[in-house]
């Protein structure tokens, strides 16, 4: 067990959206070297937990610490990979420009990207295997390539903690394998990763730990927790909510 300061601590978080409690009493911890999978059916609050960590929705209770700091003061430590539809793929920007936009905040106001910024973006591109396509307009990429652009954009600012929203949804098998491999190496470098997914097989393959979410954390443990997903999910009434193919 890694005893260093956790990269992410979600403590008793409660989020109310439109008068309805979306998640409550939610506690999660991610340490360096860990890839925590957040699993649950649609509407379980997976994305809401990520948005709460990112400060995109107000907390009705609890708090979030990133690297021991209040989340609001630790934005620079976090890389975010949203779902693909959040990104304007029709914008006239090429792959390297899109990745460089991940460093907008660290470059600072009224400044242009410098050599260090370009090098970081280039390294991120190489990590996701898109260096060859750096000059291609983002609108001409496939779904898997787009997912890799979003991962590279998050990596460009060299964050300690990476939050991934459904990174495996709708991507081809080679991209899945590449990302799987990349996430493993990032964790081995000491980064912490928190990933939402409803793909049990992907989670079992990739994650070092999983948490099952249904408005709150219902169960947490190693990927072995998913060894019998049908039983696992039946235990909290989700077996009809997602297709279980164990």
């Amino acid at each position, binding site marked *: 067990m890694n005893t260093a300061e956790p990269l992410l601590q979600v403590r008793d978080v409660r989020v109310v959206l439109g008068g309805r409690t979306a998640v409550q009493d939610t506690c999660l911890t991610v340490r360096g070297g860990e890839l925590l999978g957040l699993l649950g059916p649609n509407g379980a609050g997976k994305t809401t937990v990520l948005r709460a960590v*990112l400060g*995109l929705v107000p907390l009705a209770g609890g708090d979030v610490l990133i690297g021991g700091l209040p989340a609001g003061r630790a*934005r620079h430590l976090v890389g975010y990979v*949203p779902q693909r539809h959040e990104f304007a793929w029709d914008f006239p920007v*090429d792959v390297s420009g899109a990745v460089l936009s991940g460093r*907008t*905040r660290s470059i600072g106001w009224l400044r242009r990207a410098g050599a260090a910024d370009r090098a970081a973006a280039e390294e991120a591109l190489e990590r996701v295997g898109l260096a060859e396509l750096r000059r*291609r307009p983002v609108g001409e990429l496939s779904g898997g390539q787009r997912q890799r652009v979003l991962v590279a954009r998050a990596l460009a600012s060299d964050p300690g903690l990476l939050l991934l929203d459904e990174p495996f949804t709708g991507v081809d098998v080679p991209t899945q394998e590449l990302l799987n491999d990349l996430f493993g190496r990032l964790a081995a470098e000491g980064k912490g990763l928190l990933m939402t997914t409803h793909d049990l097989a992907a989670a079992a393959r990739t994650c070092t730990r999983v948490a099952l979410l249904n408005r709150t954390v219902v169960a947490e443990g190693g990927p072995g927790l998913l060894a019998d997903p049908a039983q696992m999910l039946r235990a909290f009434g989700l077996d009809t909510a997602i297709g279980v193919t164990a």
Partner: protein
Amino acid sequence: MTVVEFLTDPWHLPFMRRAFAVAVITGLVCGVVGVYVVLRGMAFIGEAVSHSAFPGVALAYAVQGNLLLGGALAGLTTSLLIALVSQNRRLKEDTVIGVFFSCAFGLGIVLVSTQDSWSTDLSSFLFGQVLAVGPEDVWTAAAAGAVLVAVVLLLSKELVAVSLDRETARAAGLPVLRLDLVLYTVVTATIVLSLEAVGNVLVLSLLITPAAAARMLTERLWATTLLASAFGGAGALAGLYVSYAYDLAAGGSIVSVLTALFVLTWCLAPRHGLLTRARRHRRRGPREPYAPPGPGPGPGPTKGTALSG
């Protein structure tokens, strides 16, 4: 009349020189700002802002104040209200825009109805008065235009990050709302700046059409911006020539030239134009079961030999 005479003749008239200056400055600035309006899908808010300047102008006219200043204040108030009210995600932005801009225009009509008669001042606001601008207007337009372009270029990195992905930009700590307000303010100021050239009713064309034409031709933001600006400036210049040569309304002529430019690019753009798509479709032929969509560079626009293949 020779071509040289046609080109130089209007420049002998001081009012035409000023008109050229104001129209071209307006076209250049509108091109730069319009790129964001087009890429962010803000055409409707451009329309809203231009129309919502109306009550301000009517009020300024009633109290005999500065018409442009009145228009700017009213347009700015409306666009800031739209930006704030549409932060509530329950309402889509176009809904909020619809509420506020029709309200503003209605208010303008009510104000006008309190006046005894329409004046040339009001109609010049609606349709432009580029042939009547004074020397000081040229300098005002140049200074304001330079400021607007500078703001857009200095903030382009942040504006791009927000345009690409608002949520991630906000998560990274960028002040998304404040950047929106800056962009809305710039759009409003650009519209007010353009009122003299083409007037309230046609201003959207100057803002949208050059940027739309440029978007057909390129996949790079800087190239889109340069092209849009060049189209805006060239269109304004050519439109004024047409207006002078055939004695037509200046604003309407500028808009017609710009629209012709857009139609040309829409048909002839090398990669995304109508001709290329038709050619690609024909070459693929009905019998071939599959042809890759080919994200690589498309066929050159002038290679006619591929037509029969």
